[in-house]
């Protein structure tokens, strides 16, 4: 009798715990996604002033297609992000290889110096770059923005690729060398394929860092040139129109797509030799 009562109590407590955890999770997810959902819904609402009832329309997307400022900003953003991805991924992968496979003077110091750019506020880095670029004559413009973005995303690439490199050590490359592969054959046929998931992940990081970048772009953009985040910011300041909702909704769909793609790649490539099949 006593035992029966004891058996019920912990179970009831566990149920309450699960229930509370569920609410907690729902609150967090709601906090994260409700604003985004509201924005996406409003992108399809006819009223400029967000008035309800909801009247479905695609007018804001049509307006967006005619908004040359936003389109030009989008082209800038995408072009910049792509160029940044290529440059930062190549340079960062090379740097990660050097850190992982070679010993040289000042290696520890250099590795330490990689991390502050991740933690220093972008506002400060942006100011510093603006001053520096003016001083040495680089000035402002897309080229300056690209330089800034590459500098910002490099540490992320080095860290992500470095983590992948650390997971397999030099033995594979040594084995390739004993089999007669020269350094280039070793890199192309062994190091790079094994490293690929890390490189892809790093490239996605580099793309995201550049595409989301507001502060640096804002500082380094000359008048008349802007990127999507900068353009959205000025649109909000001038007077909010649901076109911004529309463009943001598109960005969200694309970002989610990238995240899903990344998850797929990482699951299939992240575990050596299809370990999932075991």
């Amino acid at each position, binding site marked *: 009798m006593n035992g029966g009562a004891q058996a019920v109590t912990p179970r009831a407590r566990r149920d309450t715990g699960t229930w509370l955890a569920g609410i907690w999770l729902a609150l967090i997810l709601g906090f994260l996604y409700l604003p985004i959902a509201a924005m996406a819904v409003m992108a399809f609402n006819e009223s400029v002033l967000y008035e309800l009832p909801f009247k479905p329309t695609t007018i804001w997307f049509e307006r967006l297609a005619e908004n040359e400022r936003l389109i030009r900003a989008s082209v800038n953003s995408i072009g910049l992000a792509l160029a940044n991805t290529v440059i930062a991924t190549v340079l960062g992968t090379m740097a990660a290889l050097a850190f992982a496979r070679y010993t040289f003077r000042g290696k520890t110091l250099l590795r330490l110096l990689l991390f502050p750019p991740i933690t220093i506020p972008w506002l400060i880095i942006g100011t510093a770059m603006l001053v520096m670029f003016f001083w040495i004559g680089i000035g402002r413009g897309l080229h300056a923005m690209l330089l800034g973005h590459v500098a910002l995303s490099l540490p992320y690439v080095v860290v992500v690729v470095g983590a992948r490199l650390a997971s*397999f050590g030099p*033995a*594979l490359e*040594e*084995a*390739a*060398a*004993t*089999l*007669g*592969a*020269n*350094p280039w*054959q*070793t890199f192309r*046929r*062994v190091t790079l*394929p*094994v490293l690929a998931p890390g490189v892809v992940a790093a490239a996605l990081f580099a793309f995201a860092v550049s595409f989301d970048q507001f502060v640096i772009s804002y500082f380094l953009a000359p008048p008349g040139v802007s990127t999507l985040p900068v353009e959205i910011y000025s649109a909000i300041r001038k007077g909010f129109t649901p076109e911004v909702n529309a463009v943001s909704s598109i960005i969200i769909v694309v970002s989610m797509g990238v995240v899903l793609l990344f998850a797929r790649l990482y699951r299939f490539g992240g575990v*050596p*030799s*299809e*370990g999932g*099949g*075991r």
Partner: protein
Amino acid sequence: MSVVEIQGVTKRFGTTPALDDVHLRIEEGELFALLGPSGSGKTTLLRAIAGFVDPEAGSIHIDGDPMHDLPVHRRDIGMVFQHYALFPHMSVFDNVAFGLSVRHVARAETAERVRAMLALVQLDGFEERRPGQLSGGQQQRVALARALVTRPRVLLLDEPLGALDKRLRRQMQIELRQIQREVGITTVFVTHDQEEALTLSDRIAILDAGRIVQSGPPQAVYERPRTVFAADFLGDANFFTGRPQAGGRMLGPGGKELLCAEIPGDAGAEVTLAVRPEKMRIARAGEPASGDANHLEGTVTGVLYAGSTVTYRVACGEVEVTVLEQNREAAPIAQGEAVTVSWRPDHTVVVEP
């Protein structure tokens, strides 16, 4: 097929010498074991032959060709790594074919040689598997096939069986030896497992602190160890230290005379004798002893029963002796019993300290 000559090779990591003036000649078709504790320099020596370690002094020749300044990929060697280092993104076939593919061997010939090699290591039918889908023993075979398919001049094995469990290890030792004989390739292998070195190799070198302590056929090194370290590292040994007397005698524990023909006649400094535990015999006091010339009285202080054998610890005065007996008696001698330990003078070896 090839001769490896190592002359005066020296390598330091920081201030500690990893290799200290190593001389070694590995003959054609020989299976040569480098044996030593960790940090003895055995792996460094193997990696110096492979080209991963640059010696500061000395030279390495394969078939008379100097290896100095020749990068790893041009040394024409095959190597099996401790954890196999199979390429995880390639099939078994592509792993084995890798060495041929970087040499631009024709496709048809590659296929033929890879299949022949996989047949040799008994892995036919595994061509399309990934390394991750193979057991440890199978991975080991793939690694061996991959290393041999290019017909290298020398095969280097870095603790090749270290990652396998004991039973599989035994089986692979036998197979490895068979394959090595069949291919006839000069082979150097590193191990810290003395039994593996004894059973597998034609000759052994024992390394300690970057130096070769002793080298020779397994039996010679085991039966006639030259130093205390060699005697102790390769198998177990009992040591007796004392003043030599004339006529091949030494004053052992309790002033007892021990005989050994090797003891130098000139009664100089102390000498150390080594005797293997399995060369000793044990008998209860009062029962007839073996009649061997060397004998000591003592008391059993420990009995380690291991099924086929029994190991006794016997206190003989100030020294403790280990005796390994076949388990022939109905009942092992018990702890505390008084016994006589005896052995033959020709089973006694003088060793350097």
